[in-house]
């Protein structure tokens, strides 16, 4: 079973690699025109274009290009983007930290907050507190994340002026140390809030449902009967047992989070991977699209894999439903 799972992952990885390569190329559009721009201001000779096409390897047959691509991927080389005039690795290294700065805290905060609130809500199932929370979160769940982002930006940055309009740091403010940190936090608040808001409802709803299921289990009744303190039952028994599905879902949510981040980074002009891939798509920059997708896919695959291992260790019963 273990082995088969690993093979699965390898196949998935290969599929991603090939889709990654062929998808952008099979769809229409010429990366050279993107580099040379649509400004009729330019005067480019045919030779210059062919020269660049050769440099980018576009003159070779598709399969040969694929071979080169696979070869360099295994060497850890993601290529050089002639649109961004930079190596893809460098582009990714420049943008990935900012995206992680958004995703990781958002994942933690939304999971933890959602879990706590969901637990409390489920504990009080059917009472007013639970019903209100449920309604509230369902409504929140309904609001598209980009709208939350836009509203935050309009209210707090434009109308109230409390937060910056764009970016991740104040450009050229020559800040250092703690001030720089505060500046970064200051820029982070709104996009992070938007992401957390978008994600917290899902985490809440999931926890709540799980809690309800677990609540019916005999061991809770036993615990109650034993007269264990409520707080202990709630967090030790109920909480631990409800945590599992919430943790497993993280991999799924990571994928979804990436979409959310794409939208949110665009709204806040936040210099992360989402913004990068969006520009790369517009510019038909194959190499950058490939590079970003590759890294994102690998991150998700690895997380998935690790979580699955973890999950099996903790609870061998539920392998069948572990998606």
């Amino acid at each position, binding site marked *: 079973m273990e082995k088969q799972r690993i093979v699965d992952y390898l196949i998935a990885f290969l599929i991603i690699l090939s889709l990654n390569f062929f998808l952008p190329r099979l769809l229409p559009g010429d990366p050279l025109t993107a580099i040379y721009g649509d400004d009729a201001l330019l005067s480019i000779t045919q030779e210059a274009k062919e020269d660049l096409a050769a440099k980018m390897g576009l003159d070779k047959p598709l399969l040969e290009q694929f071979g080169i691509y696979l070869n360099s991927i295994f060497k850890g080389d993601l290529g050089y983007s002639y649109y961004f005039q930079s190596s893809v690795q460098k582009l990714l290294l420049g943008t990935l930290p900012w995206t992680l700065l958004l995703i990781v805290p958002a994942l933690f905060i939304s999971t933890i907050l959602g879990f706590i609130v969901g637990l409390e809500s489920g504990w009080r199932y*059917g009472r007013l507190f639970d019903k209100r929370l449920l309604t509230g979160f369902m409504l929140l769940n309904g*609001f598209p994340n980009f*709208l939350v982002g836009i509203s935050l930006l309009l209210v707090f940055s434009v109308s109230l002026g409390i937060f910056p309009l764009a970016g991740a740091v104040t450009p050229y403010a020559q800040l250092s140390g703690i001030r720089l940190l505060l500046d970064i936090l200051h820029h982070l608040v709104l996009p992070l809030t938007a992401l957390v808001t978008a994600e917290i409802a899902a985490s809440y709803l999931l926890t709540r449902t799980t809690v309800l299921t677990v609540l019916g289990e005999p061991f809770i009744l036993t615990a109650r009967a034993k007269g264990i303190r409520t707080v202990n039952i709630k967090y030790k028994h109920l909480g631990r047992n409800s945590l599992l599905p919430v943790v497993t879902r993280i991999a799924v949510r990571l994928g979804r989070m990436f*979409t959310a981040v794409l939208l949110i980074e665009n709204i806040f002009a936040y210099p992360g991977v989402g913004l990068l891939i969006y520009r790369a798509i517009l510019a038909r920059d194959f190499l950058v699209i490939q590079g970003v997708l590759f890294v994102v896919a690998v991150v998700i695959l690895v997380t998935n894999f690790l979580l699955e291992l973890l999950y099996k260790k903790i609870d061998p019963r539920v392998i069948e439903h572990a998606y």
Partner: protein
Amino acid sequence: MLAVLLIVVGLLAPLLSPYEPTAFSENTLQGPTSQHWLGTNDLGQDIWSRVLFGTRTSLINAFFVAIITVTLAAALGGSAALIGGLYERFILRIIDILLIIPNIVLIIVIAAYLRPGIVMLILILSVFDWPGCARIIRSQTLILKGKAHILAAKTFGGGDLYILFKHIIPDLSPILMSSFIAHARRAVFMEAGLAFLGIADPAMVSWGIIINRALQYSYLSVWYWIIPPALGLAVMVTAFSYVGYALEEIINPRLKV
């Protein structure tokens, strides 16, 4: 209730809207007036009419994506469980692999290139959405397979297909219903997201497109333009959530402590 209301609005959109949603006029970017209840957009189109017609687009999209996804999932998941053997393993493999691939990223890339209209959008969303549901259906079918009445049907010579349609599907209907709702909900969300990113066909009349356009004029504080489609979206998604939730309570009576 809300869901019913939305469906009624979607069906009656042509009757309720005073203008064609795509009709142009030279009265561009007007605030709400008695003629245009929610004002006009940058091309002089009536926003109220567009919001109404947007309901329709969202519903159509949601309905078809959900139908196709659930059908695919039921067919593949159900048959895998019934037929078993190599076929089952094959299907399961595909499901596993597809589940690992972050499909959202692929959807975005494909959409960015194709600028899908409504039909294309439905296809793209459906193709990538079925594996999760198929897995659930397979495991449920497996449980059902061992149940008495199906074994009985089998002993009386019912074929696999017969059993699938006559017994399994009806027994699975609560789960199918709740998957249907979940996928419908996701479809609405995805359409809005793609439209918001500006990678859907701009000629489509949908809430996502309306919001995308409106946001380009956010500096004019066009709240009357942004809020109605956003609210529509929120209400629709919430309505789906409630329906799904209610269904889940029916399926899983243990939730009622």
